[in-house]
């Protein structure tokens, strides 16, 4: 499938990304584009290569071929920390809090080193961190050690850290997995408000309700290849997607959470 | 949540703890300070020795030597100085085979325990470190086993070495070799890369060039080596008449084993340290026969001693007490406090400065040999002896006038020793 063109000046575009682990091809020529301020849902069955694609975009994994462009700039040989400073942030599926730091310090690290981090004063960074915690509903826990948080709060913290870097593009890797329906609603609201603030989002998610609810557009990966894209409702109805994503026996059934 | 008050308490408790610990330390240290300083009928010597760590074997031999002198002198009534009899005592610390710790403990002996006379630690590095301390406090130190001359090239006035300097250690074997027929010509030298051993090797090289030998192989090896097979492979290729090892006891055992493994043969083999220790013969059995060692002292040297009579009697008395024949580490470590004793008797005083002056002027014959110091404090007047192991016992083969056996030469083949 050729590049999914969305705008004349995409916020981010991936072109023919190939990643191989030994003999295994994890990504096989994937191309996609995200428009500025868009929320793009990225779905696919386990092992489809979603996290791999996020890792390539954020620079934590080197791809074997292809290119990632942000604002027209090729990120291929740029180290992850510089990508972060350019305004592209990500979260990890398995959350990586700084366990022995407080929640506030966790967020402050993002504020100290992110997009405007090095130009921010120390105090300004902590103020920014507090603002992010307030927004993500963690203000009450600001002085607790990150290791003491519940899973839901750790997921929130994972987003808060990334938000604190003040990103233009935010890659979210299954931030809702394991949350209760009420928590999922809160998280969706957070994403919407972040997006309303001008941040482009790429959301990897298994929770269908969330993906359908927040995404303006969805792309589907299966076994390292992009197999469909379009509006959420259209994509979900695509038999190819249903087969790939849910297995043959679900064909004809309605996809749900 | 804990209150600030709580934390205050904890902090207070912690600080009290620190203070209490410090006071306990100081009090404890004061409590163990010897009453000797107060008891004016006892002269207390001090020594920081290696009872743990790398040099603990040599440290143990040194301590036996010191203790033997102490017990013997006390059994004879003590030391008579200016008409008054004093008992003697030695205060020991363990330096863990670490030179910096040696220096610290010597400083403790001097400033905390009020010891006025220091017996040196084992080994050149530790003695070197300790000498800076004794120099600062102007306390005399007699050194029985730090042989590196570098210690004495700093213009210090309070350190005196009774042993022959390192460079002479293996020259005796070469002197002996010059008298053997047919005269051996080629020499291979294996030296541990440490202060003492390098000086010994330097002494060999000096002697070799001046006396018509050729040095066909020279190699240094790391002091903690585990495998010397390749070293011996190279020696074998050069087929030297004489193999000389300048290192320590364990190195000499490794070299002997590797030499046998590869059937390396030579007419003479000798070591600076090793053959004279009892461990060498027990470890190698018959293979030890024929091996020569540079020795500061042997039991058969016929020197007269004012205290012990002569070397033979010293050896007998020592063996009765410790159940082994004294090796030269034992002997030099007995001779060191004995040297102090003679200097004190001569000075007629226990004033450290006067004892120092008496040491500098001393010239006596002891069971250990002549003791006299040059201006640096080195005893260059005592010759080194050469021992050879024959039928499992140490025989003195050089110098000729002290020898009780003639050298077995050339060395027999492996398996026939």
């Amino acid at each position, binding site marked *: 499938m050729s590049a999914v063109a969305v705008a004349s000046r995409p916020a981010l575009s991936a072109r023919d990304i190939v990643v191989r682990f030994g003999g295994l091809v994890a990504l096989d020529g994937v191309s996609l584009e995200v428009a500025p301020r868009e929320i793009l849902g990225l779905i696919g069955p386990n092992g489809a290569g979603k996290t791999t694609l996020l890792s390539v975009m954020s620079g934590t994994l080197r791809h074997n071929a292809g290119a990632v462009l942000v604002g027209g700039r090729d990120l291929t040989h740029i180290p992850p920390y510089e990508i972060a400073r350019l305004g592209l942030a990500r979260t990890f599926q398995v959350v990586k809090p700084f366990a022995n730091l407080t929640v506030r310090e966790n967020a402050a690290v993002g504020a100290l080193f992110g997009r405007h981090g090095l130009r921010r004063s120390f105090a300004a960074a902590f103020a920014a961190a507090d603002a992010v915690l307030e927004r993500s509903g963690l203000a009450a826990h600001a002085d607790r050690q990150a290791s003491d948080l519940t899973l839901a709060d750790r997921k929130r913290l994972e987003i808060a850290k990334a938000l604190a870097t003040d990103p233009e593009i935010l890659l979210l890797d299954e931030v809702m997995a394991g949350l209760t329906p009420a928590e999922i609603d809160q998280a969706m609201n957070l994403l919407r408000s972040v997006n309303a603030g001008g941040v482009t989002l790429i959301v990897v998610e298994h929770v269908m309700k969330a993906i359908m609810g927040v995404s303006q557009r969805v792309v589907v990966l299966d076994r390292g290849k992009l197999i469909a894209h379009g509006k959420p409702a259209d994509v979900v109805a695509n038999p190819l997607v249903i087969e790939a994503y849910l297995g043959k026996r679900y064909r004809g059934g309605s996809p749900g959470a | 949540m804990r209150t600030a008050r709580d934390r205050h308490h904890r*902090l207070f408790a912690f600080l009290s703890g620190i203070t209490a610990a410090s006071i306990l330390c100081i009090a404890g240290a004061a409590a163990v300070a010897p009453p000797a300083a107060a008891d004016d009928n006892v002269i207390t010597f001090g020594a920081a020795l290696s009872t743990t760590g790398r040099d603990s074997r040599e440290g143990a031999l040194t301590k036996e030597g010191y203790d033997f002198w102490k017990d013997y002198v006390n059994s004879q009534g003590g030391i008579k100085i200016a008409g008054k009899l004093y008992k003697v005592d030695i205060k020991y610390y363990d330096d863990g085979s670490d030179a910096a710790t040696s220096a610290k403990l010597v400083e403790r002996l001097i400033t905390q325990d009020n010891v006025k006379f220091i017996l040196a630690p084992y080994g050149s590095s530790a003695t070197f470190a300790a000498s800076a301390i004794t120099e600062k406090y102007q306390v005399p130190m007699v050194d029985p086993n730090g042989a590196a001359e570098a210690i004495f090239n700093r213009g210090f006035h309070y350190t005196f070495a009774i042993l022959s300097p390192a460079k002479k250690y293996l020259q005796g074997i070469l002197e002996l070799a010059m008298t053997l027929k047919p005269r051996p010509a080629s020499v291979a030298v294996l030296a541990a890369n440490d202060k003492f051993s390098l000086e010994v090797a330097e002494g060999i090289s000096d002697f070799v060039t001046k006396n018509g030998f050729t040095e066909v192989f020279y190699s240094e090896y790391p002091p903690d080596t585990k495998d010397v097979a390749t070293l011996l492979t190279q020696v074998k290729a050069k087929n030297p008449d004489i193999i000389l090892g300048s290192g320590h006891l364990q190195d000499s055992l490794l070299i002997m084993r590797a030499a046998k493994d590869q059937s390396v043969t030579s007419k003479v083999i000798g070591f600076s340290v090793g053959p004279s220790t009892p461990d060498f013969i027990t470890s190698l059995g018959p293979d030890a026969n024929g091996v020569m060692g540079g020795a500061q002292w042997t039991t058969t040297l016929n020197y007269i001693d004012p205290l012990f009579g002569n070397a033979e009697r010293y050896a007998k008395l020592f063996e009765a007490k410790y159940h082994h024949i004294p090796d030269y580490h034992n002997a030099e470590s007995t001779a060191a406090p004995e040297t102090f004793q003679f200097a004190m008797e001569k000075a007629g005083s226990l004033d450290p400065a006067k004892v120092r002056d008496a040491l500098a002027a001393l010239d006596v014959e002891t069971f250990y040999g002549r003791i006299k110091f040059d201006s640096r404090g080195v005893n260059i007047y005592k010759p080194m002896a050469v021992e050879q192991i024959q039928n499992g016992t140490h025989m003195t083969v050089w110098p000729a006038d002290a020898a009780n056996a003639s050298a077995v030469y050339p060395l027999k083949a492996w398996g026939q020793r």
Partner: protein
Amino acid sequence: MAARRRVTYVILGLLALAALLPPHLNGYWVHVLTLFFMMASLAQAWNLIGGYTGYVSFGNVAFFGTGAYACAYTMTEMHWPFWGAFIAAIVVAALFATILGTPILRLRGHYFAIATLSLAIGTQALVQQLPPLGKGSGMTLPLNSDFHFFYWVMLAILGASIVVTMFIARSRFGYALSAIRENEEAAAVLGINAAVAKVGAWTVSAGITAAAGATFAYWTSFIDPPTVFDLNFNVLMIIMAMLGGAASVAGPTIGSFIISAIGEALGAQSVSPWHAVVLGGIIVVIVILLPRGIMPYLAGGPPVWNLQMVRRQLRASRV
């Protein structure tokens, strides 16, 4: 946090008072305290890379030896005054750390530990072969018998190392190090240049370590490779830092104090190896009962004598 900070200030205050002590102490206690200041400085320096950054370095002793040799060489061969040699030692070791840190700090965990261990042994082996540095014979420095001088220099190095740690801990740099320790990948995606931060931490650590090494060389006036590259120094740095509390501002100094005091109480009085047996036993007990060091207990945690807490902790660290 406030309690931790107070501990730091109290320790700095005690050290300031310690500066007044030498005229009232005999030579031995001056010696003991000088050694304590030195070991504490080494532990503080190690803490920057091993504690804050989480990179367990077995190679810091290489900087101690490098500093000692740089000082000895510049003083004896180039006839520099001590302070010149002191600065040279710091610069040489810092350069050494920067150059070697770049490849070595790419390694993590065990591999970093071993790479640094081989760095320490390798540097010693190399120095042992270099004729300008005296090979195995070592080097002799000019004698300075004013031991109070060394007391004050070591004390100043320790004070400086604590102050430096204090500033780093509250700085952007310090947060970078903590984040790297906690999770290097997460740190990177937040914009932290881990390579630069790690090398920076090691360089500062090396500089402090070399300062202590240079002072040690001049103090003892004789150095040889086994003495200044002694791996036991490195092990002691780690033990002291761990015991006090790694990644705490003044924990390593507290740990050094305790180990030094135990050593002093046990070691100096006996020539039987029992004292070393007891020391080993005490460390075993401390490690099992205080696996996270003492600092958490001083800074608001439950007290050491809270057996329930100890038991809970033990359960957590068993399998």
